[in-house]
């Protein structure tokens, strides 16, 4: 059984935000616009956050791209009253938009602030509809949405592998952000398969996870020479 995970090399990330835009394009994330931005309601499943330390001129900083951590012990799934979010056998924390009642309890329970709520009806102007990815549904108003590790790609890849009667290979399934990273900072794969790069990188001495002390066991690892 696969355990999908991600490794993000912060020493390589230069904050270009290609992953954010690739994710928007892949997952039909609606444009919030200036109004939503001023109200802090922009939805972005992948967020490049900057950590700045020190004072001018002795200042340093790094970019931390943050998708959903897909915790092995996700605090969000436990609190959902309607099973709209759960962790599946391969470790992907999903969100079923048709089930969600929009109570936002999961968003509050998430220590990483990576669950997003559709405060308004997601706006996709009619002329942009042909550009929507048909593999991902357009969310209705009033539900939570989040990074799914591009699980629609997994569905297609697995189907393709079965059509070709072969096992699923490492390159068959990757996320849009990992695909798009120009510096190759984001690597995606099966953490339990020693032949996958993520498995090796997640054991790198530079590896750490966000808020490790909370015991959520995230499956997104970060690499950094800095502590």
């Amino acid at each position, binding site marked *: 059984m696969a355990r999908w995970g991600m490794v993000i090399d912060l020493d390589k990330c*230069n*904050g*270009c935000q290609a992953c954010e*835009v690739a994710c928007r*394009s892949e997952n039909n994330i609606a444009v919030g616009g*200036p109004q939503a931005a*001023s109200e802090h309601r922009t939805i972005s499943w992948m967020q490049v956050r900057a950590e700045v330390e020190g004072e001018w001129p002795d200042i340093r900083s790094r*970019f931390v791209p943050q998708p959903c951590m897909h915790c092995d012990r996700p605090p969000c799934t436990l609190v959902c009253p309607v099973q709209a979010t759960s962790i599946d056998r391969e470790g992907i924390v999903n969100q079923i938009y048709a089930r969600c009642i929009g109570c936002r309890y999961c968003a509050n329970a998430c220590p990483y602030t990576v669950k997003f709520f559709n405060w308004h009806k997601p706006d996709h102007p009619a002329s*942009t509809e042909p550009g929507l990815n048909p593999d991902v549904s357009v969310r209705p108003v009033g539900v939570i949405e989040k990074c799914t590790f591009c699980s629609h790609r997994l569905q297609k890849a697995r189907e393709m592998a079965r059509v070709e009667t072969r096992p699923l290979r490492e390159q068959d399934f990757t996320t849009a952000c990992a695909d798009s990273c120009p*510096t190759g900072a984001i690597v995606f794969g099966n953490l339990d398969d020693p032949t996958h790069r993520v498995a090796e990188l997640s054991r790198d001495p530079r590896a750490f996870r966000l808020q490790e002390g909370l015991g959520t066991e995230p499956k997104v690892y970060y690499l950094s020479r800095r502590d």
Partner: protein
Amino acid sequence: MAITRRSFLVGAAGAGIGFGLGALSHQFPLASPHVGPDWAPNDETFVASTCLLCPAHCGIRVRLIDGRPVRIDGNPLHPVSQGGLCPKGRAGLQLLYHPSRLKGPLVRVGPPGSDEFKPIGWNAALDRVASALSSASQPGGATPVEWMVGDVSGVCGDLVAGFCGVLGTTRVSVDDYRDGSADLLGMCQGIATAPAFDLAGADMVLSFGAALSEAWWSPLHAARARDAEVAGRSARWVQVDTRLSRTAVGAHQFVAIRPGTFGALALGLTYVIVKEGLYDADLVARQVAGWEDWTGADGTPHVGYRTLVLRHGRSDEVSARTGVPVATLTALAKQFGGARRGVAVWDQGVAWRSGGMADALAIHALNTLTGRLGRRGGLLVQGPMPGLPGPAEQKAPGAVDLASAPLTATSWPAAGSDPKVLFLYHANPVASLPDPDTARQALARVPLVVSFSPFFDESARCAHLILPDHTYLERWQDALAPAAVPSPVWGVVRPVVKPLVNTRATGDVILGLATRMGGSAAAWARWKSVEDLVHERGLSLAGAGRGSAFVDRFRQRELGEVEGRGWWLPHGQKPEEFWQTIVDSGGWFDPLIDYEDGASRSQLPDGRVWMFPAEARARLSKSGRALAEGFLPIDESLEARDGGPRDFPLQLIPFRVMTLASGGTPLMPWLLEHLGALNGSAWETWIEIGPETARSEGLQSGQRVRVESSRGRFEATVRVSPGAQPGVVSVPYGLHSRVEGWGEPNGANPLSAVGRAVDPVSGLPDWQSTRVRVVRI
């Protein structure tokens, strides 16, 4: 039970209310789930093309579902971008599907200043332009036709240039990204092109404010190079900058420096290198002129750069001027001097300033002194492209050269008589000039303004005719890699989707106009279409006997080795097959160029490289600025010029953001949602100030302010950032234009405070010498 009148009425009322509620229930967005009305086979295909959203011209691979583009990825075969793509390239879809795209050509019906347009047929529109061009051309005199061009890449630039030749006009202004490096190379090395920094081959990159990760010539080239290993270890990148930019965050070391003192720092570094003897004295003696004192042909003694460095580059003085501690300065100089393959890089951040050319010369001298010219990991010159046939190939004497046309922002409208016809191609002067009213008035004076904008932008509103261009995803073109990339790359831009609306490629419009005008013009326009022209160029590459269609990286290395031994393997037997391979893979490139043959070091007659060459000295001494010993710039007090620190206590530094550079961004909401990675700004123009400045000026993050200079003002939102230098206001440039209809940013044009100042020495804009004050609104 009998139905009484009462029970009937009550029941009917209940039913009526229920019916109403039931009907109304669909009005709420919470109604039943959306069901797709249709089915589609959802067939997935991929098409390779080239991104035209900035001069980097990265390879793209468009994912199509049933022929509709749904995602843009990088083309993994592209030799420069190697499958990478910046966020802007990915957002190109939004340009294609933008709800406010013009649906077809429009003609003005209302009076000037009004926005009243009505649709017009293509033929009628072209007839009108052709007849205006014919009647405007007067025998003997130059045709009073003017072009304003925002994108001169490839065949479209050549078509404009060629058409100008046909029309006999030289009035062309180009809104491009010149940073003065080509000028500098011409003076120092006799090479008429911008340098190609071999970042991937360098073990130390010392960047003087160059926005390598943001708005450099090819940010992807730089991004790949930063993580490349050189001689078994990763290269060291040092960013010297006036603010903690994204490039600075990504560099291994960030050196903070006061604005406008890059040249002084270069001088200081040279001083330490000379004192420590870390330069190649033998090489300098053989190849470099102007280093030691010398006597001119007329017998006048000249001070050499070495003497100047020793006199003016003392570490304590430089440290005091630049704000870089002596220890950092010394360590940096030792690292750079000791690096085997170090290279000093700069861009507009240095050049677009009064005195910028002298700074650039001082930085360039670092490369010269350490023998980095024409060496791997140093300063190369892009290998030559095989000659490409095209509309501009036979240049008439005195014909226009787009490469030397000045920047629109500073010199338009030109003094003198107004043209009779003005073409706006990828240009929006009303939004991009410091003063929109001047631009509007200038446009109003022209009898026929033709805009090729696919959007109803500020300048298109002032035009008489709008002949909307295709987006780059719908048309044919070709695109060369920028000069900053060492190897020549010819990318094919091809329609990945049939035009969505009734637009027409501007290249085809130009050919159509020339045909309509008849005579020599019609003879010049011998191609059926731009596609025909690109095809012809592709076929000529098949005959060049070198290079290859894009191939994967293993094959690239293999080809390089094969070609190195003098072999060339064409793709396919016939030129058409070769062309087809180029189209399918995305373009043509030549992996093997011999850079170390000396041609990229100097092409001057004496084969030497000049430090502070005579022409530069002459230009500097004529500039009227205070200079030390004839040409070394002295840090002028800007305060004195702008009324002193009392009125304008802060210095303004406009900077470029990857997604904002080169315009178009306001049309791509995906990018506006993620504008400032460092401070989370979105959808608005912001100013960055340090906590210290915020305290002294009484400002807080999120406040709206007006930034005022002696020349003008703009409005922005304050972002207090620890990465901003005390006393400096940094502002992103490029969010000034807007098109109504989908997500309108709260943008401002910082140029309105900068004005149209030009550095008299380089002719480049002076953006970094503006003093401002910040007023809360």
